[in-house]
């Protein structure tokens, strides 16, 4: 039996990789995919916690996270498509309209 701390460590590493990806990359699509990576790391931690405590509550939470992630991806990709249509470029560095 693999101890839950292994899963938590893997989840922490995945989350850090996802956050670094959000900061480092310039393509908004890749930034979105890195966010998905971080969300999945959190999901893995939730399932591991649920496993440790012997309840299905963690899995119910992961179910909600998946639903919210699906909605988020649909809306986010639509926004990216609209931005691309208006600017014909796809780099987060160009989007400085709302910067003070």
């Amino acid at each position: 039996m693999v101890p839950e701390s292994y899963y938590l460590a893997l989840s922490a590493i995945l989350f850090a990789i996802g956050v670094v990806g959000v900061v480092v990359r310039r393509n908004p699509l890749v930034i979105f995919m890195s966010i998905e990576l971080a969300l999945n790391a959190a999901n893995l931690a939730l399932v591991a916690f649920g496993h440790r405590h012997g309840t299905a509550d963690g899995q119910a939470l992961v179910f909600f996270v998946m639903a919210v992630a699906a909605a988020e991806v649909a809306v986010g990709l639509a926004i990216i498509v609209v931005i691309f249509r208006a600017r014909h470029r796809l780099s987060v560095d160009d989007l400085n309209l709302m910067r003070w």
Partner: protein
Amino acid sequence: MATAAFGLIALVVLGSALGLVLKRNAIHGALFLVVNLGGIAALYLTLGAEFLAAAQVIVYAGAIMVLFVFAIMVLIPGKEETGPDPRRGYRMLALPLGAALLAELVMIGARRGAAPRGPGVPGGVEAIGRLLFTDYLFPFELTSVLLLAAMVGVMLLAKRT
């Protein structure tokens, strides 16, 4: 045996996550992410969460990644990140900051009491369905409203004016 399986899956998951962040080509990143999500589904299986493993493959690796690949194909990226990065100095700050974040997460994860192990692990569809329709009924209904709002919002956004 179980530890070996976990180590193998963890290697695949970590490698594909690094591939997503390091590869310049967005479509390669998307394919790496599919591998990553599949690996996490396998980890769910090792934790006894069969329903989530199936949902992960269907919802994430199926629906969401098809949406991603579709958007990548429509937007034709690949020439956006080829030039030299004008803000390379700032972006390299992400590495020490990411390492600090990882250290914090590990510290939080390591600081735990001896948790009581509950009786068995309910991972089947039955246990989750029971929870969703009793304790989590209100959030469950809210999810349907959220999905409907997202659907309408996407149609509004994507409409050519």
